[in-house]
């Protein structure tokens, strides 16, 4: 048996979570360094995974397979394809930054909580690592049930992160902030739990269907795919559609897709910036990733059947999210709505069912993760300095903190997909991929590009430019730790904008296989002028 690299990659942050949680209450700094250390070590492992992964090789690589719950037909099966490995790497990459950015976010207010057993710092970092472990497993799992378990379980640490460690800043004081925070946490959990429970029904249905057709219930993706290839697994179209809807609903809540999106602005608005990054850049990616992996691969016919509706919803998400972003008064909520718009792009790319669309969507997941992380983390630094999230409380920041303003602008430009930065490549691929099959939708979606410029630049203008507002005068520029958090992300955005080929090489074969699963080929150009 070969070395269980994937398991170790997922287990290390879990171990880290336990170790961090176990640090005594007084040794907060130890807890922080422990968390950072574990996350960096995880990143190293993820890089090893990335290196060991051979683009163009087997569909699922570095596989591991063990019996787990025989009765439920559940196996402990891991394996990564190009998209999975990219997202594992993204997750492992972002967590150290999230931890470093949140270095002081969970320092307890001594006077407020004299209880010595209360250990928020340890809890905060342990929870982040726990989320990382669960997300990594979700990206690695090739067993539907295994995936589902971690898909659901990650809600719990996320829930505590949102509800337990929100921004203290609120216009109506701490009590109101606490109330809003717990509302946001509950909303997050309920939305996702309901989605997950609907999916549970479909998971059970899948078991029943596979038991019916194969003689034994199974959740193994590979086994199902092989059985289908051999003609042994063929769902009735109504069954397939119901199951598809069950799965898709959960992923659409997580992603989130309009009109299931309203939890995201609350969750991101009330949580601290690093946690907001964790939500939108990491956890939500599980939703879109799962659409690509599970919806399309398990239910190809139903996916095609649902495509028109999903595409329309995606386009609505794009424009609706962008319009609402324009109308926000709160920096983080604005970014949240922008994310909704971006998730619309990702979903549109997935369901356009073209090479460009899906590769673009896969790239988009990675790029959006990095760009939103950059923007949100800087926004977090900004917010923590002023103690307010309201756009109206800022103005003229670039005068007093030019580096902060500059990094914020770059994050914003990445968000509006400026060419030369990574998100541009993916956004254009998604658009062109959609356009080549559904020209009208592709054109409508371009409105989102204009609106993206609007919300980003309005945000920048109102916060950073103009005369220096009261309350902003003494603002300090970014500290070394903060620059160290943001600079690598920006560098990565630039690098992937100019040279995304390493990523496309990894992603393309996986996309090709998915498309052949759904029996779709790219539309041919009207005339072949290339050669």
């Amino acid at each position, binding site marked *: 048996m070969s070395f269980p690299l994937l398991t170790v990659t997922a287990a290390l942050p879990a171990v880290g979570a336990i170790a961090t949680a176990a640090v005594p209450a007084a040794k907060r700094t130890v807890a922080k360094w422990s968390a950072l250390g574990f996350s960096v070590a995880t990143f190293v492992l993820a890089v090893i995974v990335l290196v060991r992964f051979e683009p163009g090789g087997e569909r699922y690589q570095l596989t591991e397979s063990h019996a787990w719950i025989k009765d439920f037909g559940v196996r402990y099966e891991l394996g990564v394809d190009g998209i999975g490995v990219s997202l594992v790497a993204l997750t492992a990459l972002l967590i150290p930054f999230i931890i470093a950015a949140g270095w002081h976010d969970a320092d307890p207010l001594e006077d407020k909580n004299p209880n010595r057993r209360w250990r928020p710092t340890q809890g905060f970092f342990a929870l982040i690592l726990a989320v990382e472990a669960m997300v990594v497993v979700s990206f690695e799992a090739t067993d539907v049930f295994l995936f589902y378990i971690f898909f659901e379980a990650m809600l719990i640490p996320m829930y505590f992160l949102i509800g337990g460690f929100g921004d203290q800043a609120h216009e109506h004081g701490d009590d109101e902030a606490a109330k809003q925070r717990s509302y946001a946490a509950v909303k997050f959990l309920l*939305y996702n739990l309901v989605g997950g429970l609907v999916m549970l029904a479909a998971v059970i249905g899948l078991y029943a269907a596979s038991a019916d057709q194969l003689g034994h219930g199974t959740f193994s993706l590979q086994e199902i795919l092989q059985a289908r290839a051999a003609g042994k697994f063929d769902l009735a179209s109504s069954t397939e559609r119901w199951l598809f809807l069950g799965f898709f609903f959960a992923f659409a809540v997580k992603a989130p897709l309009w009109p299931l999106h309203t939890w995201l602005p609350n969750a991101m608005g009330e949580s601290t910036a690093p946690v907001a990054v964790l939500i939108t850049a990491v956890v939500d990616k599980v939703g879109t990733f799962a659409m690509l992996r599970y919806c399309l691969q398990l239910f190809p016919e139903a996916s095609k059947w649902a495509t028109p509706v999903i595409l329309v919803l995606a386009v609505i998400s794009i424009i609706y999210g962008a319009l609402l972003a324009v109308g926000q008064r709160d920096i983080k909520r604005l970014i949240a709505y922008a994310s909704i718009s971006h998730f619309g792009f990702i979903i549109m790319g997935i369901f356009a069912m073209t090479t460009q669309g899906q590769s673009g969507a896969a790239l988009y997941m990675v790029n959006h993760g990095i760009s939103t992380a950059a923007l949100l983390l800087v926004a977090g630094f900004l917010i923590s300095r002023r103690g307010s999230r309201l756009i109206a409380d800022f103005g003229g920041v670039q005068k007093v903190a030019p580096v902060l303003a500059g990094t914020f602008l770059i994050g914003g430009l990445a968000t509006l997909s400026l060419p*030369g930065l990574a998100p541009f490549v993916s956004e254009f691929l998604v658009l062109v991929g959609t356009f080549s099959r559904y020209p009208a939708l592709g054109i409508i979606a371009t409105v989102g*590009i204009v609106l993206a410029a609007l919300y980003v630049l309005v945000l920048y203008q109102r916060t950073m430019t103009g005369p220096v507002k009261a309350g902003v005068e003494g603002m300090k520029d970014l500290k070394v730790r903060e620059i160290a958090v943001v600079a690598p992300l920006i560098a990565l955005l630039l690098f992937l904008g100019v040279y*995304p080929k390493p990523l496309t090489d990894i992603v393309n074969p996986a996309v090709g296989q998915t498309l052949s699963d759904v029996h779709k080929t790219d539309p041919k150009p009207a005339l072949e*002028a290339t050669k």
Partner: protein
Amino acid sequence: MENLIGLLVAVPLLGAAILLTGGRRLDRIGHWLGTILAAVSFGIGAVLFFDMLGKSGEDRAMYSHLFSWVPVGGFQADIGFQLDQLSMTFVLLISGVGTLIHIYSIGYMEHDERRRRFFGYLNLFVAAMLLLVIADNYFLLYVGWEGVGLASYLLIGFWQNKPSAATAAKKAFLVNRVGDVGLSIAIMLMFTTFGTFSFQPVLAHAGDASEGKLTAIGLMLLLAACGKSAQVPLQSWLGDAMEGPTPVSALIHAATMVTAGVYLITRSGAIFNGAPDAQVAVVTVGAVTLLFGAIVGCAKDDIKKALAGSTMSQIGYMIMAAGLGPIGYVFAIMHLVTHGFFKAGLFLGAGSVMHGMNDEVDMRKYGGLRTYMPVTFITFGLGYLAIIGFPGLSGFFSKDKIIEAAFAKGGTEGWILGGAALLGAAITAFYMTRVMLMTFFGEKRWEADAEGHEPHPHESPKSMTIPMIVLAFGSVFAGGLFSLNSSFLKWLEPVTGHEEGHSPLSATTVTAGTMVVLVIGVALAWLMYGRRAVPAVAPRGSLLTRAARRDLLQDDFNHVVLVRGGEHLTRSLVYLDHSLVDGAVNGTAAGVGGLSGRMRKLQNGYVRSYAVSMLGGTAVLIAATLLMRAV
């Protein structure tokens, strides 16, 4: 040689990177570094140019393929360059004028504490603009296209503390984005039509595609050009863009960036040639804009805004020429280059005036400056003569050719276009004379400002006047040089192609007509602003004047329809998101809660009522069981 092409972009880009990340320690040398790197880029351009001259006309194009950029299925985007005569023209213009303006800025921005950053942005702009013109495919061109937009955004809003500057920057970027959407859709259309978006295959096979497709692509390219080149209906940003430092206005918003639309249309000539409907659209946009800009230029008291209107108008000429097809491409580019010289010179002159006048921009507060700043006066004057088309100067040659070509379009269309071009020439003469008179002639009209600082007009330092002088040379001689032996035509023809039109009027007639309208325009201006004293406060003016001062109400339209409408839309959506989308879910939750509250009441604590429910339940159970059997 080909390997040098990439350096054109790389050198200024490096400069931008160093200057923007280098921090304060580069403050003292930053401006020199930026200028040198721009000059290096120009040097490389020059080397390549002479190399190119050594080859025959058809073989002059050079290609350089760096690496595969975005390879996804049929979508193969590469980082590759194509340097042919058209690109070369732009390279020299951009890096040349760019270098001059770098030099000028050293003096102009001397007292600005953020000068290093300014040079960083300038370098960034030069890099992006060069990338735009040497890209070998539309997708890479798009990068340069948005890159110059970004640089423009940063530079317009350079004085970010001024809310008006920040707003103007944002507006410029947004309006440009609308145009950019056109470019991206055009690229997508090319991809679905040709399977590629590289210049060579697309342009070579343009003839094979259906006219409908070509028209669509052409219209989308036109949309892009409208945004970047401030053509109606996307022209509104250019006037506001004058909030930026004047060198920026000279480089970006006069000489180079705003002409990118002309480049795009000329570059895509093969597409437009196959799409007559799109060409009609192009010439219409061009003709409308050349009049629109000219009218706006007449009404502005802000010297830079008057020049901005003029820029718009002049680019209208170029766009119109480009829309004429092979009869116009070369002249569009020729006018573009000469315009680059004289308009840059005019802006630098305006900047020089402002520099001496405590940054006052209102021409009504100038007057009689010719004695205070003679160099500025002379260089500005030469630029003025060039733009109005004074015989022998640059503008004369290039503009005249365009008017001729417009008539040569033939038919009613030709008459309309030619007429518009002539009318435009008259208005140009009028408003430029107005600027000249109000600024340099008449009595001094400046006063102390509210804080009692009276401006002390003075000539600008050498670093500023030398670029102005150089540009003045260009304004004077470029046109003649290009027309000599039709050298410019021969230079560009292998790339753009050329046809002689069939003008209903002879060249002499056109030239004579042009002279007539020129004289009328100048005379009218002299009557209004030379003979009479210019009031320090603008008179109310006619309806048209007032409309022209407000950019012919286009901004008001935008404000009411787009801004207000958009605000209402977003506000109502925010409300709906909360009340409807969120409300539906919260409502369900509240519904469950209400149901729960009501069902809870059944649990009333009386054991007998519990017994009743048990008995009733049993009865139902029995009945249901019996019923099941009966069914």
